[in-house]
Every structure is written in structure tokens, then in C-alpha cells.
């Protein structure tokens, strides 16, 4: 009994265990604590700017001045703005056409590079060149190639007697669209090709051996072995490719600044022109926010459409 009393006097009475104490050691919460730094990072550098952009689009902010809340006014204005809709059309056209060509040519190139041939490593490295040249530099080079007066293409064709007058590459609406899409394809192919090539190399050769024994043709091998096994890579690559194309800015800005008569204005370039050059931040943010639904749709299509296969979860293919 005395012992018990001694104990009570020397030791402090245990305080109540608070929720905080529990959370600190709770194993279910441990994961949360570890995630916290990453989360803070994402919130600070991704969620906050995105949220800010959305907020600004509801105001009449200008550069250097905080705006007042104007509700949906910016969006209502854009809804009736023919130039905005033209830029939406241009962006969709640009993305759609360029992505299809990039995929087709990229895949073809990947298949070629996957073959055994002399100087394989060197050829693979060469394919990457358009991708490693800084975009602005290649755009400037193409700007000269498509120049109204000094185009090497026009010059060559004239020398050969095919045409009598320079082609108005960047001054004619259709030629201008063709030219910028062409450059985008040229620049985007290596990314698609090399990534798909990496994907091709993960396909086990034994599958092809088995197919050969079964007497499959090359097309059948592609259709039933290569393509299905490549699908997840294709989904990722094309998602990225579409996102990059949709949000492209540098090529257009360096080559046409959205001209002629806004025929190559993409949403990104129009947003920049209105927000930064023109100083109307609210409207500019509204234009860039208008890209979000399109981008989300692109992501959804590729992830839910192409990646739903069960082998994604480690189960048998069906």
C-alpha cells in the first residue's frame, strides 16, 4: 500500500490522450503524414495557380491591377466572340490532324526501327533530332523555309519550272494552317516513335516465335500481338501528344503570331495575346480555362477508353 502511494506521488498523473496524440501515432494516418510534403508541393505549384487562373477569369483583372468580380461576363463575351471560336476550331483542327499523322508516322517509324538493321543505334539517335532542337529555333528555321519572299521551297519549285510565283505559305489561310501543322508533325514524330519503340522492345520475342510456328502472317502478328501489347503505351503517348499539341504555343508564335487574319490562332496564343500583350488578364484566363474541358476529355478518352483492359490489373487478357 505504501508502495502504491509512493508511486502516485513521484509520477505525474497521466494526462488524457488527445486526438492529436492518437493521430501522431495512428498507422492509418501515417501515410497521410508522409504524403504531406508532396501534397503541399502540388497545392502550391499546381492547384493554387490553377485556382488562381480560374478566379481571375471571373474578374476584370488587368496586368498590375487586381480586378473586381464580374461573374461569367468574360465567358459570355467569348461565347459570342467569332475570333475565340475560330481559335477553338483552329486548335481542334491542329490537334486532330497533327495527332493522327504523328501517331501513324511515329508508329511506322517505331516498327521500322525495331527491325534488325545496320547502324541501328545511330539511326535511332538520328530520329530524335527534331525533338532535341529547341522548338523556337526549329520554328524560326521553318519560318524562313515558308517565308513569303525567300522560301527555299518556292525557290526550288520555281527553278524547276513547276510554279511561276512564290507560294504564299504563311499568308494564305489554308497554306498557313497546312504549314504550321506540318511543322508540328515534324517536331512531334520523334517523341511518338521513340516511346513506341521502347514499348515494342518490351514485347517478348517468344510470342512472335509461337505465332510464326502457328503460321501467322506479319499483319496478323502486328494485329494480334504487337498492337494489343502496345495499347497502354499508345494510350500514354497519345495522351501526352494530344495535350502538347492542344496547348502548343511556341511554334505558332514564332511562325505566324496567329495570322494571317487569325487563321492559325490557337487558344493558347489567343490567350497570350489578349492577357499579356493586350493586358486583359481576366479574358485571357477565361480563354485558357476554356481549354480545360477539352484537355480533360482527351485524358478521359485515353484512360477509360484504351486502358480498361483487365491485364492492366494483372489479370488475363480478354
Amino acid at each position, binding site marked *: 500500500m505504501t508502495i502504491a502511494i509512493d508511486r502516485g506521488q513521484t509520477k505525474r498523473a497521466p494526462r488524457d490522450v488527445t486526438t492529436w496524440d492518437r493521430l501522431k501515432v495512428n498507422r492509418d494516418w501515417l501515410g497521410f503524414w508522409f504524403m504531406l510534403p508532396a501534397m503541399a508541393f502540388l497545392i502550391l505549384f499546381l492547384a493554387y495557380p490553377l485556382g488562381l487562373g480560374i478566379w481571375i477569369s471571373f474578374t476584370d483583372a488587368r496586368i498590375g491591377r487586381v480586378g473586381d468580380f464580374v461573374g461569367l461576363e468574360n465567358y459570355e463575351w467569348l461565347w459570342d*466572340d467569332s475570333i475565340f471560336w475560330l481559335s477553338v476550331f483552329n486548335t481542334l483542327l491542329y490537334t486532330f490532324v497533327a495527332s493522327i499523322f504523328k501517331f501513324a508516322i511515329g508508329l511506322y517509324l517505331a516498327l521500322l526501327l525495331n527491325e534488325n538493321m545496320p547502324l541501328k543505334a545511330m539511326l535511332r539517335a538520328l530520329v530524335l533530332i527534331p525533338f532535341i532542337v529547341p522548338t523556337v529555333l526549329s520554328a524560326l528555321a521553318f519560318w524562313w523555309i515558308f517565308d*513569303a519572299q*525567300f522560301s527555299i521551297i518556292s525557290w526550288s519549285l520555281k527553278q524547276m519550272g513547276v510554279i511561276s510565283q512564290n507560294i504564299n505559305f504563311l499568308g494564305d489561310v489554308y497554306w498557313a494552317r497546312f504549314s504550321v501543322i506540318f511543322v508540328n508533325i515534324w517536331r512531334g514524330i520523334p517523341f511518338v516513335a521513340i516511346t513506341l519503340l521502347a514499348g515494342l522492345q518490351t514485347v517478348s520475342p517468344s510470342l512472335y516465335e509461337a505465332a510464326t510456328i502457328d503460321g501467322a502472317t506479319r499483319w496478323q502478328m502486328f494485329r494480334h500481338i504487337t498492337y494489343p501489347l502496345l495499347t497502354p503505351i499508345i494510350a500514354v503517348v497519345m495522351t501526352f501528344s494530344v495535350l502538347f499539341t492542344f496547348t502548343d504555343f511556341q511554334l505558332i508564335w514564332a511562325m505566324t503570331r496567329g495570322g494571317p487574319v487569325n487563321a492559325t490562332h490557337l487558344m493558347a496564343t489567343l490567350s497570350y495575346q489578349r492577357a499579356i500583350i493586350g493586358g486583359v488578364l481576366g479574358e485571357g484566363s477565361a480563354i485558357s480555362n476554356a481549354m480545360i474541358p477539352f484537355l480533360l476529355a482527351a485524358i478521359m478518352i485515353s484512360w477509360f477508353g484504351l486502358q480498361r483492359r483487365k491485364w492492366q490489373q494483372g489479370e488475363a487478357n480478354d
Partner: protein
Amino acid sequence: MNDFTRRTVLQGGTAFAAAGALTGPALFDFAKAWAQTAPWKAEKDAKLTVMRWKRFVPAEDAAFNEMVAAFKAATSTDMNVFSESFEDVQPKASVAANTGSGLDLAWGLHTLPQLFPTKVLLMNDVADYLGKKYGGWTDAAAATVKQGNNWLGIPVATVGGYLTYRKSALDKAGFKEFPKDFPGFLEMCKALKANGTPAGFALGHASGDANSWLHWVLWGHGAYTVDKNDKVIINSPETVKALEYCKALSDTFIPGVASWNDSSNNKAFLAGELYCTGNGISIYVAAKDDPTKKELADDTYHALWPIGPIGKPTELQLCVPILAFKFTKYPNAAKAFIAFMLEKQNFDKWLSGARGYLTHTLNAYDASPVWTADPKNYVFSQASKRALPASGIGTPGEKAATAIADFLVVDMFANFCTGREDAKGAIAITERQLKRIYR
């Protein structure tokens, strides 16, 4: 006129200083003497941070920096000068105005001080001092920086743009001198095209070149984006006339002008494919500096923009005003520096360094040596006199600046001239956008 190609083109032409201008020790002596008697005494240990636009001509920059050094030595003011590209000057100045820190002086474009009239240090005394001493300010320059009777900044200079042409082509087309009115100009362009020596003016998003010549066509017909009270008046018969005139003109142009940016006409002219265009003095300077282009330089002449049906000059020229922020701790040093820049001993040399790229806004500098050093420079001496502010007859300020930055007038003309829209459609699109900017 904010392209870097033009600047790089000009980099060949360094080391040009007018004979007899103050340099080295003499400049320092002048600066010291000036500081003793100037109406503004720089505060003790003053420190000024100055932002300016990036120069086109190295010699201009050199003259500016020499002046800064002399001012620094004479007043013991610590000077921190940095340059920004044309596009970045306005946003940075706006942010400084809004946050109340970062800069003391900003040397920008167009109507910069009008963007934040409550944040600038009034320059009435400086304008008064300089105006009295140097024969008064030109109207366009004053309008650009004045709000009522207050000077929000000092219009340091104008970056002039005029017609650059090949005399041989004009002679061949039967024009003894450059036409002075719109019909004559159109006739000349037609004749040039018929001879295979076409003219060409940018119809693309060339912020300097396209804006300046298309505003000239618009204003020359008496059409404006807004009236004196900033009411949108673009939808007018005059605008239709301007569109039709422009269409007729553009039919005579060298192909590809819809894709042109600010440097395209420089390239085409220097390559001998283009025979008449609107530009800063840079084409001529570049030709002069290139020994292989001597013939072209000798054949290149400048002309004033012809006068439109309204009977008076209607030019859009690029004013470059300087302002001091109200929050600067050293208002006297700031004022002293601005006044010092425009004193004859500095400014003559500076103008010479700029080689015609910069035009004075104070009448006394009509006699500046740069305008007679090469007779072909002379046309550019008129830039500050024949211009309207960037807002036309409307209020100079942010709204007018936005309309120009968003290429509203350029796109209206381009839409019509390329046949994408009829006159009604082209005007309607522009009117709608203007109404939003001027709401």
C-alpha cells in the same frame, strides 16, 4: 517595331557620334556645372532604378549610358539602369505602379504614363523648364503624356516610321517625286506593280509596321475607332472608304504581306525585291552599313506619309515617354535626371547616336545635327509633329493601348483585304471588340 531582327541588323553600325559633341571629361564638367545650377538638386545618397526599352542601335545605348555615368558622377546619385524588350516594359511598369516598389523611373512606349495616372510623379515643372528652354513641345508628344494640364511624364522622343522607297523604281514608274495625297499614292503603287517593282506593307500581326500604316489609312479618311468622348464610332461610311482604299492598295502589293511581321519588309527591301514600304529608318541604316549594298543605299529615299482626304497629316508614330513613380524616395533626383537627359549637350549627341531612329519632341532640336548629317534622315525629323496620339482623337490611355495590342484595326483591314469578310462584317467584329474595351 519591336522585332529583334531589326536591331541585330543595325548592330553593324556602331561608333557613330556627332562631331563636336561632348564626350569624356568635357561631358563630366558640363554635368557638374549643370548640377550646380539645375532647378532640382538630387537628394543626398539618392538611388535611382531606371527601366528602359531595349535599344535598336548600339550607339544610342552608348550615348545614353555615357549620360547616365555623367549624371551619376555629378550628383553622386547611384544609378541602376536595366533594359527590357518592348513587350515587357509595360507589364513591368504596371506591376511596379501597383506594388509601389521596384522602379523609380520607367522609360516606355506609347502612352505608358496614362495607364496609371495616379501613381506617377507630376512633371509639370520639368516640362515647363524644358519647353521654355527648347522652343516648346510638339502637340502630339504633349497629348501623349498630358492629362488635363498635368504632365504625367516627359515625352523623350518618337520612334519615327516613314515611307522608304527606291528612287529608280519611282522614276521608272514616271513619278518625279513621291505622291503627297492618297489617290496619287494608289496610282504610284499600281504603276510600281505594273513595272514588277512592287510596294508592300504588312497586313499581318506586325505590331509596329502594320499598326502604323493601317492607322494612317484609317485616320486619313477621317475614320476613328472612338471619338473625343471615347464613344465607339468605327462603324462609319469613312471606315468603309478606308477599307476600300486599302483593298485597292493591297491588290498592288508584293504577295505574302498577310504573313509579314515587323522584320519581313526589312528583309525583302534589302534583298531588292521590295521597292516601297513603311518602316523606321532601319532599312536605310542597314543598307548604308553594308558595303555590298552601296547601290541600294544610294537609291533608297524616304518620304512623308501622303495626306488623306481629311487634309492633314494622320500618322501613328511610336512615342517613347519616361515617367517617375510617385513612390520614389528621390523625386528631385528623378526630375533632375530627366531634365539632364534632354539638355542640348546630351540630347544632340544622343539623337546622333540613334541615327534617325529617335526623333525629338522639343522644337529646338529641329536644328539638331542628325537631321542634316545625312539629308535622307530629314524626313524622320517630322515624326513628332505629324503624329496623332495612339488613341487617335480619343483619350490616350490604357484602352487605346489594348485596342492596338489586340490588333483590332489591323485585323479589320486584313479581314477585308484578304476577302475573309465583307466591309460590314469586318467592321462589325471590330466594333464589338472596341465596345468591350471602351465599356
